[in-house]
């Protein structure tokens, strides 16, 4: 009984800790900057819903949203397909340097982005991809690929080898086996990587701020930066922009959280 109460208390404190800032930003998104600077923590006296269409239409948020959608969706599609193929090969085929190649890809996870970003910047400039959405998409794919391969490889490796042999006996070439056997069975793990990648890339700021300068090519996290000036910050509009940016992620999470947990804990395939 006491241990349950303790657990409950811990969960409550954690929830307050995690949800508090979110609620705070949510209240600020409905208040004007003047109201906020008068009292940072007050409830909205009047709900300024008009700030949302204002951000969307007058502050270019529709464009940012579109850019984010384009970059994230294409990056996630490529990540999933290429990552799954690589993971399938690492888990399924014996070839020279298999483990070494896997280790090198995996070790890329440990480098913080700050280490590579200057080199990346230079490379993109050289290839004429700087300040383009294609360039940003390619960088996102490169950055997230190691983790994707890592998660999927461990799942593919647990699929019994007999299934692949059975498909071979049924007359299927390797390429079809990947699409018709590996991929559908690994769906929980694939859902996990799709959600993780979507959330991470949707919120990504560092690469975007370094690699994108054009107003028309900004993604959502950069759009928020627009309201930060040298002299003054439009805190109210930043909060509104944040809410617009967060909503899709929250929706995805609500719909797929069960799948996400399933994929993370998915064990034996019977």
């Amino acid at each position: 009984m006491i241990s349950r109460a303790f657990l409950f208390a811990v969960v409550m404190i954690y929830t307050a800790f995690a949800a508090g800032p979110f609620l705070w930003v949510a209240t600020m998104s409905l208040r004007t900057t003047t109201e906020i600077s008068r009292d940072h923590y007050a409830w909205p006296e009047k709900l300024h819903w008009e700030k949302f269409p204002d951000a969307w239409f007058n502050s270019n948020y529709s464009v940012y949203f579109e850019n984010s959608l384009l970059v994230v969706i294409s990056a996630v599609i490529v990540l999933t397909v290429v990552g799954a193929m690589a993971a399938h090969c690492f888990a399924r085929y014996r070839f020279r340097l298999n483990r070494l190649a896997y280790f090198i890809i995996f070790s890329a996870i440990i480098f913080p982005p700050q280490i590579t970003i200057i080199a990346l910047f230079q490379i993109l400039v050289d290839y004429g991809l700087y300040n383009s959405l294609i360039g940003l998409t390619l960088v996102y794919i490169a950055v997230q690929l190691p983790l994707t391969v890592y998660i999927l490889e461990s799942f593919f490796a647990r699929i019994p080898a007999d299934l692949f042999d059975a498909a071979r006996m049924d007359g299927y070439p390797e390429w079809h086996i990947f699409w018709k056997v590996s991929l559908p069975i690994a769906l929980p793990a694939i859902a996990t990587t799709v959600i993780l990648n979507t959330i991470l890339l949707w919120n990504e700021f560092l690469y975007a701020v370094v690699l994108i300068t054009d107003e028309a090519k900004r993604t959502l996290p950069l759009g928020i930066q627009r309201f930060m000036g040298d002299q003054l910050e439009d805190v109210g509009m930043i909060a509104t922009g944040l809410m617009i940016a967060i909503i899709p992620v929250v929706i995805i999470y609500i719909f797929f959280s069960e799948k996400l947990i399933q994929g993370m804990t998915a064990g034996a395939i019977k």
Partner: protein
Amino acid sequence: MATVSLKDLTKRYPNTDSLAVDAVNLNVEHGEFMVLLGPSGCGKSTTLRMIAGLESISSGHLSIDGKRVNDVPAKDRDIAMVFQSYALYPHMSVFDNLAFGLRRRNVPKSEIDKRVSNVAATLGMSELLMRKPHALSGGQRQRVALGRAIVRDPKVFLFDEPLSNLDAALRVGMRGELIKLHHHLGATMIYVTHDQVEAMTMGDRICIMNGGKVVQIGAPLDVYRDPADTFVASFLGSPPTNLLPAVFNGAGLTVGEAKLPVTKRGTADEVVLGIRPEDIRIDGAAPHVQGEVLAVEPLGAETIVRFRIAGVSNDVLVRGPRTVTARVGERAPITFDLASAHLFDPITTRRIE
């Protein structure tokens, strides 16, 4: 139907010295049920997987219907295989599991429907077609795995210990069904098992393997009666053949205290006498020797008695009738049925003719 022929088939895994499969020669006839039998690690599964095309062949020839298929990929060999783990596709219904191979071969949809429902009816699982594998019992999964092979109507069926994941009662039932199925289809089947009862009851012929090599090939009873060496003698039969060290001297064969009227064969004086437990009797009329009873195991239909004969290092097992009255600690008369006994060379382990 097809013939399968293995000539000096060899498998060497990289970075190992020993051969997993060592120059195996085997001819499987049209419609034959051939059993590959041996202890685990004897190379029987590797041999099967080479026939299937799932393992590469290091050297030797493999031909199906007289055509060399060493380098033909598994998918083009027209062979079906039933796996020990069943290997059902977990994301597909039973129907799709059965139809998967046919779809690849561009069989028209109406034909697929017909064949799948025929096979399902044959195996008594017509009501299960829409279920997923995880909603099936072990026996039902086994049937689906079997059906997946049958529905393709392949040249050759391969079985890799298909019954070893089933419980004992179900295994006996499925054994009978497989025999029936073989008669019904008349197809060439190659069946790998370590279970001698399966081998004896199902095989037209048995190919016994040990250490990557073929030891003996023959009809089950022939192999049982005339084992080629001590390995086969001790591997087949439960309890196994008694292998007793023996010496020829003037009068005949001496096994510890026992003097047996056996005429000398071969050149060596020291031999191994192999005699099956059912070829030894416990009775008083002119016994060969007296033995001390170490244990009595009444099994209902029969009684297994363990004897010690003075001067013999191994115990002697006797399969007696259920009426055996011997008690532990007593001495009892033992008679060998020498017509059914074999002599083996202790060094080469081969049978002495």
